């Protein structure tokens, strides 16, 4: 949680990257404006999610930033410069653009797709080629895919290439229109995690459009919840939107279980992992026994030579000294990555055998153990003071099952 707090402070002092001033759009032949007098500021290095029901004008709003849709009135500022009347082609080369359908060029190789903007900017061949390799690595695609064509790739891979292509010329700003909307839920989850990890390194200013409040909560540093005509219902951090919804519309849009949703906001890396005795598969039985005896725990975690957790072993398990360590105890399941949310961790714990989860890094190396008590403490800290809690509607303390179903349903009204 402390990380988020400092991030927030940084944002207060951060430069404004995009400023929209009284932006409106009326499509020809329509009486009602799609976007009506919208003003907002987006700071450098943050992900701002525009979220709202379909037809609320969130995509139109985003597309006015790179002027794929020209505003009827109002002004757009990028890095302090009024770009409302600037050459749109030059403007767009400074803004990465990822759309739901990805729009890779099917007749061009992966390398050529990625090289699109650098070529337009007149980079030399060597620099483009190096950049393509670098980006493929960044998005986790093997460089041997360079000369392949989009149709030879899976949906998730295409999406990664789409992101790489948008980042090719290192634009300070990226616009993403439901970028993970067209892939299956499992791939989507992984792409979201990857993207957040990537954003941790690149720190782009990102405007992200989605209709899915859960995705918004997961991805956004700040979320703008939009009503019809792109009227801002609330523009704030996910925490504050979940704890303090501005009005009934926001409350309805968040759906039920906002408290459980807040668990998605904290990562395990934000909390303290418990101290746990570990030993190696190669250690002798005697050594392992001593480890358990010298600690306050009943069992010890065995790691293999690559530091990956393999087995839980209790003192009784090694009483029978004849069984090799790889086969004693029970397998180390319930493993979560350090950047997983508490929501996922809790879920893993509930289904695990011993009610604790092993934390590993990206390569699967052991980092620590989180037990149920630690997570409960965090949850306790999140709870509002007694007095306030009594005023909350009872529906927010629904059993977990119901909440999860609602989450999956995409967070519609209760």
């Amino acid at each position, binding site marked *: 949680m402390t990380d988020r707090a400092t991030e927030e402070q940084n944002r207060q002092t951060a430069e404004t990257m995009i400023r929209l001033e009284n932006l409106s759009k009326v499509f020809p032949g329509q009486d009602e404006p799609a976007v009506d007098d919208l003003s907002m500021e987006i700071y450098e290095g943050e992900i701002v999610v525009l979220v709202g029901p379909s037809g609320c004008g969130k995509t139109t709003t985003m597309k006015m930033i*790179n002027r794929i849709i020209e505003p009827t009135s109002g002004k757009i500022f990028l890095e302090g410069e009024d770009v409302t009347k600037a050459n749109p*082609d030059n*403007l767009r080369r400074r803004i990465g653009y990822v759309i739901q*359908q990805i*729009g890779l*060029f099917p007749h061009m*190789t992966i390398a050529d797709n990625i090289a*699109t903007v650098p070529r*337009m900017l007149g980079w030399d061949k060597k620099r483009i080629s190096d950049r393509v390799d670098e980006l493929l690595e960044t998005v986790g695609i093997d460089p041997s895919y360079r000369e392949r064509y989009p*149709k030879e790739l899976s949906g998730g891979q295409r999406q990664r290439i789409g992101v790489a292509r948008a980042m090719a010329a290192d634009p300070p700003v990226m616009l993403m229109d439901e970028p993970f909307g067209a892939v299956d839920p499992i791939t989507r989850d992984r792409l979201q995690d990857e993207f957040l990890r990537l954003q941790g390194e690149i720190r782009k200013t990102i405007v992200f459009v989605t209709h899915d409040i859960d995705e918004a909560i997961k991805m956004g540093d700040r979320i703008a919840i939009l009503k019809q005509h792109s009227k801002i219902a609330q523009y704030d951090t996910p925490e504050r939107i979940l704890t303090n919804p501005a009005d009934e519309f926001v409350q309805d849009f968040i759906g039920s279980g906002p408290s459980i949703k807040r668990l998605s906001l904290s990562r395990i890396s934000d909390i303290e992992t418990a101290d746990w005795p570990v030993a190696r598969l190669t250690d002798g039985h005697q050594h392992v026994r001593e480890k358990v005896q010298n600690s306050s725990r009943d069992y010890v975690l065995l790691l293999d030579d690559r530091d990956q957790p393999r087995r839980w072993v209790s003192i009784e398990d090694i009483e029978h000294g004849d069984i090799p360590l790889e086969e004693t105890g029970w397998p180390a399941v319930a493993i979560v990555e350090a950047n997983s949310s508490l929501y996922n961790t809790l879920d893993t714990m509930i289904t695990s055998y011993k009610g604790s989860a092993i934390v590993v890094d990206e390569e699967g190396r052991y980092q620590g153990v989180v037990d149920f008590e630690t997570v409960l403490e965090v949850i306790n800290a999140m709870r509002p003071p007694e007095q306030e809690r009594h005023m909350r509607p009872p529906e927010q303390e629904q059993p977990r099952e119901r909440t999860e179903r609602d989450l999956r349903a995409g967070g519609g009204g209760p």
Partner: protein
Amino acid sequence: MTTLQKASREGPGGAARLLRYLGMPIFLGLACLALYLYISSKELDSIEQRNINAEVIIQQTARLVQLAAVSTVIVVILAVTAGILLTRPLTRRVTPAIVGIANIGQAVPSIGLLALFALTWDFGFWPAIVALVAYSFLSILRNTMVGLQQVDRSTIEAARGMGMTKMAVLFRIELPLAVPIILAGVRTALIINVGTATLGTFIGAGGLGEMINNALRLGRYDTVLIVGSGLVAILALFIDWLGSVAEDILRPRGL
């Protein structure tokens, strides 16, 4: 030829593809040989000798190829350009009118179109070319328009969103992606033009049609007519084969 080799190497069925590339020319070669052997076995009278000899055959075949090739080149340039212009947002209003006119060109029977140009203008090579262009204009125009319209809107939006100019989008995205469909139209136009060019003889444009026409008038059905119509058929099949090879080579990879 390297592109051809590359194309035949990739993907499954390399042998089947090779057979498709070589099968037709081998078949047509055999057909020519059969025609030659058939005529050699016949006693030809003087009329037949005047109509079937190397010089006449080469001259008339060359003329037919010339008619088909020149008209096709012209119609490709005109109809593809028109197809591009008519799919731009600015011209949306005049599009139905132009397509309507092109429709008339194809709706009129080809022989009527030839006669029309001969009567209102002149006899000879160029009036025939103009008639052929008018007659095959629609097939290329329509395929160009369909080819450009079927390009995925999201692909174009992505290109525009990355800062490609409209021209760059047209030449680097839309046209390459429309090439397979445009080429199918060109191939159709070529076939139409070979067939129609045979009728060019009636307005003095020459070609193998002359041989067929002579055979019919002079009643030399089992010799001159067979050679004339046989050669036209072989030529049409050969040009169609060229078209199919061109389609394979020019189709962008990755589609």
